[in-house]
């Protein structure tokens, strides 16, 4: 089996959306378009317990077919790479489960195979995770309450690129932030394979009390499809575009 191209949106936020359409619905739409949505809720290191606003985190990731995690700032780097890799494996497993159903003609997942066969299938999943192409659009909530966490976010993203670039498969990242008064989201870093040198990307931020997570996710989804159009115009042949494989 050949590895394909996997697309993910990674949303980093610390609060509840309070403006525009329902982010859970947009995440479901993204999933339908072949884009997985992962969400990380970032807590202050002194914060205790899970604040009300972060309940949404799990719901968005569930609808987006992705992984969610609520973490303290200091654990952000570890979590960002773990969530991204886990979501990647989850997507690949999903595709393999479909294949299994095709072959075996019944509803059977990897987990239901006897251990011997399961051992062989997980090696295939692992191989695909190592070799597939990965596109990650990072969407950073940079509303006022997130400002002091942004240096940590920057570090975590550099670390993510370090982890993923150790793979055999290629990676592309881009970073967007929201809210933006004119266009909902602003591109901070254009598509690149390295996220290590991002000087001053989170300067000149707008502050304001509103968090339009839903509209921002939708714009991120548009940004993905624009990228695909650019690729098509360049005449890149990509037979796996539709399903990710």
């Amino acid at each position, binding site marked *: 089996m050949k590895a394909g191209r996997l697309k993910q949106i990674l949303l980093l936020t610390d609060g509840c959306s309070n403006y525009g359409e329902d982010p859970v619905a947009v995440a479901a739409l993204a999933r339908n378009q072949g884009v997985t949505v992962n969400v990380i809720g970032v807590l202050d290191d002194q914060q205790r317990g899970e604040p009300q606003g972060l309940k949404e985190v799990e719901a968005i990731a569930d609808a987006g077919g992705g992984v969610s995690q609520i973490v303290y700032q200091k654990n952000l780097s570890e979590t960002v790479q773990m969530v991204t890799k886990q979501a990647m494996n989850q997507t690949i497993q999903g595709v393999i489960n479909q294949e299994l159903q095709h072959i075996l003609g019944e509803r059977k997942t990897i987990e239901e195979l006897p*251990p011997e066969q399961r*051992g062989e299938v997980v*090696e295939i999943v692992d191989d695909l995770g190592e070799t597939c192409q990965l596109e990650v659009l990072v969407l950073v909530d940079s509303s006022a309450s997130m400002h002091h966490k942004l240096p940590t976010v920057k570090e975590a993203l550099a670390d993510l690129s370090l*982890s993923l670039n150790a793979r*055999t498969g290629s990676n592309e990242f881009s970073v967007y932030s929201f809210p933006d008064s004119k266009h909902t989201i602003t591109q901070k870093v254009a598509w690149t394979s390295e996220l290590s040198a991002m000087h001053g990307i989170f300067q000149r931020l707008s502050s304001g009390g509103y968090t339009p997570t839903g509209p921002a996710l939708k714009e991120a989804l548009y940004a993905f499809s624009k990228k695909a159009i650019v690729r098509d115009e360049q005449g890149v042949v990509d037979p796996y575009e539709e399903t990710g494989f």
Partner: protein
Amino acid sequence: MKKPDFNLAAGMAIRGKWGHHVYHVVRKLGEGACGVVYLCQKNGVLYALKVGTESSRLMLEVNMLKKFSKVQGVKLGPSFVDVDDWIVNNETYPFYVMEFIEGQPLSVFLKGKKKEWVGICAMQLLSDLEHLHRSGYVFGDLKTDNLLVADSKVQWIDVGGVTAIGRAIKEYTEFYDRGYWGYGSRRADPLYDLFAVTMIMMETVYPNRFDAQKDPKKTLQDKLKSAPLPSEYKKIIAECWRGKYHSATEMKEALGQVLMKRAQPPKRSSRKSVQTDASEWGEMIGVSAIVLAFYGISAWNLWL
């Protein structure tokens, strides 16, 4: 990421769905990255049993265990025993069973011992790594949590991070990860493990570990400078970070030279009492015997 949210009580029976073997829980041993490890017994024999929720990760570990129970006639890590699913309350939990290694954590073992032991333990690790690297793999998540000392020999007990050379390191822990400190990539090559060995040596004098701060490389250099380790070890650690050693063998030889040198009779210091001198001597002889034994084993392996 998720761990089974149940606590298994002593005496509880874990029955395999496929193989029908029954294991009785004795007590909890610890928690790993993707599961909980219990001491269990079957027909009077003790085993370590890891139960988790993420079937695919457990299966990858089983594949590694099977592969590395024996590499080139050398046993690396615990032996594989069984793999199965356990159904309880309509939920399926995958589990696997391996040999139970009874030992002490490295920090406990080293307590009150002379600093030579840090070098010896590092050499033991490097000897095992030599074999692993030669077979095309790196250990990856090499850290004290994944080690036990049994019969004065360091053994690794969790092979979940073992990665084929050239691939992305499967699992890592920041403190031991060269990428975190700015000393290289997270792609698996033998030097990735050598870096982790130096961090295990550092940890013996910084048991609470430390963070990278603003400038990771500088933090690490400063910590090395002020580390209460013998200067010969500090030199080897610094050389390893500079990329002087290209294999576990080279680093092991460098450590070996230091240890052999130290085995020379120390200069008599007049202030010390005869008694401490004698006990020190005893330890020195023990140390050199173990070092010699090591050379013997590796020479023998090479011969084969």
